[in-house]
């Protein structure tokens, strides 16, 4: 369903729509990103809990979208927890007994987890808790639900190593009108995230607070500080929630289905404060023996009582070892006591698009996680969603994810409006021209120039590329001729001349460039004094430059390199720096080495040798991208990130 949604045409947000501020909640009836109409809002400011769930309608039906309240948007630990939940849900994949996660989207800097919407039954019930509040369930029906729950947990555990849900409770066991049970809410999940194959790291807090029933006003689990819901928490989860195993989930399962059978909770806890509630719950789970089910429910078979009581053993070692084992015991009870063979629920197999969406979501989670991990960017997130989406686009560009880069650029264009930021026009048009989407690129740039007719310089690269793609050679040439000659202009001229077949002009430009660079180097080296610091792109470069200069300018005294201190990027400070000259010399030499340019031998062979020594074309690629790449691969809060960020994204400093 979500896949189709993601393919719908994007529509700008309504006039006046701003980035969500603190306490912001999309109101019922609002249209988000032109795709989803808000039908219902669950939770949010004023309610307990930190999450908020929107029930959204679209042309493909209803979906649920979970996110966190904006007042917690600066809580890095909470965001990490949300991202971990989302990543876990994606990795779990598809199972009929787990609420299906369609994917993640970042909407105006906030991540939303899009999920299957489970319909209410005619009585309005949607969870096991709702059903239990309305009527007594028959034992075979409870057994069927319990086995379905085991099925879901077996799948989840197989998909995500060492997964512990930590918050199994009747409210989190949804039941579709057809009777299919679906486990939901992995907000407190703990698992061994393989950092190489999943999203955010596992970093949990384990300070218990929180809850009670769904009806006593303490019902929502307090993410960020809580580690479960006391009424369903295993004794060991009160002590060390961080290190619980699946056996804690088996205990919680026992609590849920004890309650389903008995029609009342495992323990009745009377308390006047949340802390007292936790303390008493902890005491009872640790020391009180459960009342046998038969005392509440005479029709409960002894074999079922035994299965549930084994789940509820105080010592984890005495519980069922895993959900597969538990499932088999329950199936046997259903068969032996009621003559019913359990039929697993089925679901249509996932479509390739479903898998692709989950894949895209994992990629997006990586980028978002990295972006919010950078303090300087995090600070900009809420007041400048435009810059945040642009920065995410940069992340995906440097990580070779062009599709996601394009999506983020489109979002940046949408949240801010095209007239106010040139950065997105430049980057988006660049991508569109590269992808051959000339009409869209043209419309985007025309719109920009209609508002800012004197600012073509801001979008010069994509504009020239667009003219070249349309074979408007003369127009491109006139435009470039109006600009002061520079390396930037030269790059575009070379692009133009190559496309229009005027290769002799490229040879002229690049010969001049090579000579200019050599002259620069001669002057710089002449000014060096022994003991000076000299900057280089990477180790080995001094020797490479010596090789070039020995050939290109034998008159230069290279011995000076032996009497200076060599500093390498990114540690070089304000000192003579050879990396730019070497990068541009590699470009010039690389072009002149092309036989099509007609440089005579041995000149051509000489340039080919230089290009090889300088590592063309990787040298210029690295030189152009190195600061941006470092931004996304270095330490997130490296102080050096701020100036890099601001130079890469001048929009970040815009109001």
């Amino acid at each position, binding site marked *: 369903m979500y896949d189709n949604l993601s393919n719908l045409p994007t529509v700008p947000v309504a006039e006046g729509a701003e980035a969500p501020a603190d306490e912001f909640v999309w109101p019922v009836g609002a249209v988000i990103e032109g795709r989803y109409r808000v039908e219902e809002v669950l939770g949010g400011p004023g309610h307990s809990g930190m999450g908020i769930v929107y029930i959204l309608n679209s042309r493909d039906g209803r979906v649920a979208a979970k996110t966190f309240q904006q007042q917690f948007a600066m809580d890095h630990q909470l965001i990490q927890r949300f991202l971990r939940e989302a990543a876990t849900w*994606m*990795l*779990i*994949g598809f199972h009929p007994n787990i609420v299906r996660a369609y994917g993640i989207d970042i909407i105006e800097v906030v991540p939303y987890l899009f999920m299957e919407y489970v319909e209410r039954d005619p009585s309005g019930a949607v969870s096991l808790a709702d059903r239990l509040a309305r009527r007594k369930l028959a034992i075979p029906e409870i057994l069927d639900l319990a086995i379905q729950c085991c099925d879901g947990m077996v799948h989840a555990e*197989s*998909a*995500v*190593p060492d997964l512990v849900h930590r918050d199994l409770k009747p409210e989190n066991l949804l039941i579709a009108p057809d009777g299919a049970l679906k486990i939901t809410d992995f907000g407190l999940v703990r698992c061994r995230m*393989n950092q*190489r*194959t*999943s999203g955010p790291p596992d970093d949990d807090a384990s300070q218990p607070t929180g809850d009670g029933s769904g009806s006593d006003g303490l019902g929502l689990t307090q993410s960020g500080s809580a580690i479960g819901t006391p009424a369903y928490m295993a004794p060991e989860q009160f002590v060390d929630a961080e290190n619980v195993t699946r056996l804690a989930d088996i205990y919680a399962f026992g609590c849920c289905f004890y309650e389903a059978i008995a029609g009342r909770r495992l323990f009745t806890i009377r308390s006047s404060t949340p802390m007292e509630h936790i303390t008493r719950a902890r005491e009872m789970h640790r020391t009180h023996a459960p009342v046998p089910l038969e005392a509440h429910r005479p029709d409960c078979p002894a074999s079922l009582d035994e299965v549930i009581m084994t789940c509820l053993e105080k010592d984890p070692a005495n519980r069922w070892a895993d959900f597969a084992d538990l499932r088999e015991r329950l199936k046997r009870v259903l068969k032996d006591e009621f003559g019913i063979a359990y039929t697993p629920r089925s679901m249509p197999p996932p479509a*390739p*698009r479903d*898998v*692709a969406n*989950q*894949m*895209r*979501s*994992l990629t997006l989670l990586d980028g978002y996680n990295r972006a919010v991990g950078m303090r300087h960017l995090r600070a900009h997130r809420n007041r400048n969603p435009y810059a945040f989406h642009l920065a995410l686009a940069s992340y995906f560009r440097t990580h*070779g994810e*062009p*599709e996601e880069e394009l999506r983020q650029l489109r979002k940046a264009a949408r949240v801010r409006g095209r007239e106010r930021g040139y950065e997105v026009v430049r980057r988006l048009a660049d991508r569109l021209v590269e992808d051959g989407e000339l009409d869209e690129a043209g419309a985007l740039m025309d719109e920009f120039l209609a508002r800012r007719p004197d600012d073509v310089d801001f979008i010069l690269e994509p504009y020239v590329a667009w003219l070249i793609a349309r074979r408007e050679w003369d127009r491109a040439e006139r435009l470039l001729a109006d600009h002061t000659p520079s390396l930037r202009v030269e790059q575009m001229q070379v692009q133009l001349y190559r496309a229009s077949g005027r290769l002799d002009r490229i040879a002229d430009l690049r010969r001049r460039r090579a000579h200019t660079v050599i002259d620069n180097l001669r002057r710089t080296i002449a000014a060096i004094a022994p003991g000076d610091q000299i900057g280089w792109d990477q180790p080995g470069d001094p020797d490479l430059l010596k090789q070039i200069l020995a050939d290109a300018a034998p008159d230069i005294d290279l011995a000076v390199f032996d009497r200076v201190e060599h500093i390498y990027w990114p540690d070089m400070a304000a000192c003579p720096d050879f990396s730019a000259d070497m990068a541009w010399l590699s470009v010039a030499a690389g072009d002149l080495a092309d036989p099509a340019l007609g440089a005579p031998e041995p000149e051509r062979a000489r340039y080919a040798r230089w290009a090889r020594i300088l590592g063309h074309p990787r040298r210029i690629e690295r030189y152009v991208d190195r600061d941006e790449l470092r931004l996304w691969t270095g330490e997130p809060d490296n102080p050096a990130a701020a100036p890099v960020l601001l130079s890469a994204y001048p929009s970040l400093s815009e109001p």
Partner: protein
Amino acid sequence: MQIASTEVNGVTLIRVEGRMDAPAAPEAEDAFREVIDAGATRVVIDLSGVEYISSGGLRVIIMLMKSLEKARGRLVICNPSPFVSEVFEITHLSRRIPIYPNQEEALTAAAT
């Protein structure tokens, strides 16, 4: 899931069988890393035995692709099922990883 690798004319051929999903991803990742650690730069993955691939499985392939890109190597896929083929199309991975209908063409492409 089963993974076996052999070398054919300087190209490492990895044959994967079974579901390439989240539970299988760590095993695949280890196997691919062994291939990289052994110095392989030209790799073909034969997916004829893979009927289903999840996002977890795709990520392992992407990581292999990136490792090979860094080493200036090449990754080629062959024999994807219609399901796998469509996943590669939708994720646009097919633009980044050449896909061939049979092993022979894939090996030739990887070797050149």
